[in-house]
């Protein structure tokens, strides 16, 4: 059981995690200031005989300081976050040579369509596998997400990627896997009674293993 985030399995996992850490530091400082401050005040200023409270209505300089510092911090955080947001989800974020895979979400399974030997979706050598996402390591992959019935959400924790699959919409979501291994895909939007078991396996292969698997799976699908 980790106490922190899962394995970094994609190129932007590092960036997401870095941002998470930065926020943890910022909020951590605020947390310490507030909580330690509260505890200190509670102890130091507790009622004791003969004490009187200090009669004041406030301090404008304090207000300016504690408005400005959070505001500046939030603006900075926003600028940094937006940089990564555009990179990961922006309309032009999908790398040009990304390998296409179509994922059609339906109650309660993931239909994954591979482009076959020609590497193009929408051709006759495409084939579909249920609940298994195989990807090659070190190459950008773009998932063409669609949904059959209700809203589902494509979520692979180790890739840090999440994208809702919405009926009536075609949405592209890209990632680049970095660590070969077996992982899991979960549905992250309540989609009905089988939501909890809408799980798929994710296999990140080396390029050779992927090519081998692709050939074999295509043959199996053809039968």
């Amino acid at each position: 059981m980790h106490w922190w985030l899962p394995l970094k399995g994609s190129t932007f996992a590092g960036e997401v995690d870095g941002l998470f850490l930065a926020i943890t530091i910022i909020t951590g400082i605020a947390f310490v200031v507030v909580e330690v401050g509260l505890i200190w005040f509670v102890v130091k200023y507790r009622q004791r005989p003969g004490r009187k409270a200090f009669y004041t209505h406030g301090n404008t300089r304090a207000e300016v300081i504690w408005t400005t510092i959070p505001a500046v911090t939030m603006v900075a955080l926003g600028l940094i976050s937006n940089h990564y947001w555009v990179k990961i989800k922006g309309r032009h974020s999908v790398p040009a040579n990304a390998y296409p895979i179509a994922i059609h979400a339906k109650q309660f399974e993931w239909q994954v369509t591979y482009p076959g030997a020609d590497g193009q979706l929408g051709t006759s050598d495409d084939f579909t596998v249920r609940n298994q996402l195989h990807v090659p390591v070190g190459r950008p992959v773009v998932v063409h997400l669609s949904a059959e019935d209700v809203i589902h959400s494509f979520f692979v924790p180790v890739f840090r990627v999440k994208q809702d699959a919405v009926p009536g919409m075609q949405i592209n979501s890209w990632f680049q896997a970095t660590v070969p291994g077996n992982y899991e895909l979960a549905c992250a939007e309540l989609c009905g009674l089988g939501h909890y078991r809408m799980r798929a396996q994710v296999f990140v292969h080396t390029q050779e293993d992927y090519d081998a698997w692709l050939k074999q799976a295509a043959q199996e699908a053809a039968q």
Partner: protein
Amino acid sequence: MTTVAATAHTAHAHHDDRSFIRKYIFSTDHKIIGIQFLFVSLFFLLIGGLLAMQMRWQLAYPGQPMPGGGILPETMAPGGVILPEYYIQLVTMHGTFMVFFAIMPLLVGVYANFLIPLKIGTHDMAFPRINMWSFWSFFVGGLVMLASLFVPDGAARAGWTMYAPLSARHDFSGASLGQELWSVSIIFVGLSSILGSLNYITTIINNRAPGMTWFRLPLSVWSLFITAILGLLALPVLSGAAIMLLFDQIIGTHFFDPAAGGQALLWQHLFWFFGHPEVYILILPAMGMVSDIIANGSRKPIFGYHSMVFAIVAIAFLGWIVWGHHMFMSGMNPTLGSSFMVSTLVIAVPSAVKVFNWMGTMWRGNIRFHVPMLHAVAFVAMFAIGGLSGIYMAATPVDMFIHDTYFIVAHLHYVLFGGSLFALFGAIVYWYPKMFGRMMSEPWGKVHFWLTFIFYNCTFFPMHILGMAGHMRRIYDPTQYTFLQPYQPMNVFISISAFLLFATQLIFFVNFWWSLRKGARAEQNPWHDNGLEWSLPSPAPHGNWEQVPTVYRGPYEFSSPQVAEDYLPQYKKLPTDREPARAPVAGH
């Protein structure tokens, strides 16, 4: 037994010869209406808790028969084992009851009704009969929602957020009548809220006592005023959405059905355009009451009163332009994501300002730790955590990972339980004497507070860790996923803490009910507070004052150098005070 009405020491505005029904059932007295909301909402809070207990059982021990589960029907839990279709009803109904039938009515239905006329110095609301309809509309809505649990196909089950098209089509959700009753119930809730807001806004604008200028209003009143405006403008959008959903469900319209040209995202935009102001409705009154209590407990004026008012207004204003942060992953245009991120980060600032001002109020105070003060300080501590966790969600790349995980569940419970509910516990104890003429037990109040504080943190803090692991929300059986199996002990820990947390609330409930008859009789101003309500006997009589008081100063003149006591009520005239511009007319 009389609670409010002819037990007061002073003569009354008029002879109170109302029948029992008119006095306590179909009452137009704002105080009785507030108490009605209190009793009914506490009941729904209990229901919401019971639903959560069942969820936590299933999460800790998936597939195991639940103790007492035998009383549930076979369609929900055969042999006491919760079914997936029942689990998602529990999830949906827990959220629905807690938001619409517990927290919102406790904060607004109870305290807007009870406090506003008392704290601004008038006899009742501007429209007492409309006020009564506001309660009964809420009550009917509650009955309908409760009934939906018992209909043949079961209750609604698309989450309290009711995303379409899952919620719109019976063939997708498996629920039919229950889903429709949810929409019907929400329409009644919306009506209740709008009727209430009508009263709160009009009364505060036009019926303040002489000398009660805008910047002498207590922050509880400011926050209730701003909340009323939010409710007035947001609930109609929810009502509209609920009506459209109901029409999709029963008369075959296609608003949210993509298969027939509708748009799934339309529901989300409508819902969250309401939903985000709604969460500020759920926190602002709590913040306002906490301000009153912290000033009282610290024996100091609120630090930065004007900043606090501006912060409330800023939060309310900004609250209209952040709704898309619930939809970052929804498939909406990513550029919209950027703009909503900016507005969401900005809204963190006024909340931070408020936290610092509460701390500033306690700084160099002379702090009394009565039970309400314990809760108010805990509010600040817990709300700070909830607010800080929100920053992770505002940063869209991070939200990509934590959206729809337990990190969100942790955040919302820190602000709603650690925030709103702690504030409510404090408020209930604080204004209990004015409501019922008695005090709740202080020792049991302290026991309840500490146990709640401990078990609450044990329940909800670990959820941050689960969320960081990627643990999804609304999942019937986490052990289906290999990556979640190592976290099962944490789920067990959370559930056990939750069971203990729930059990602890029995202390509060017993204290509340027992003290109604057996609590120490309350004096007029037991907390030595400055608000106008403390000029009345405990409990406050029908009609409040024979002649409304005059206001000479702001609400937080604690430890003022002008007097020897460490409090100086708003209504107390000192030799140096002048009458305000318009003097009271005799007979009013």
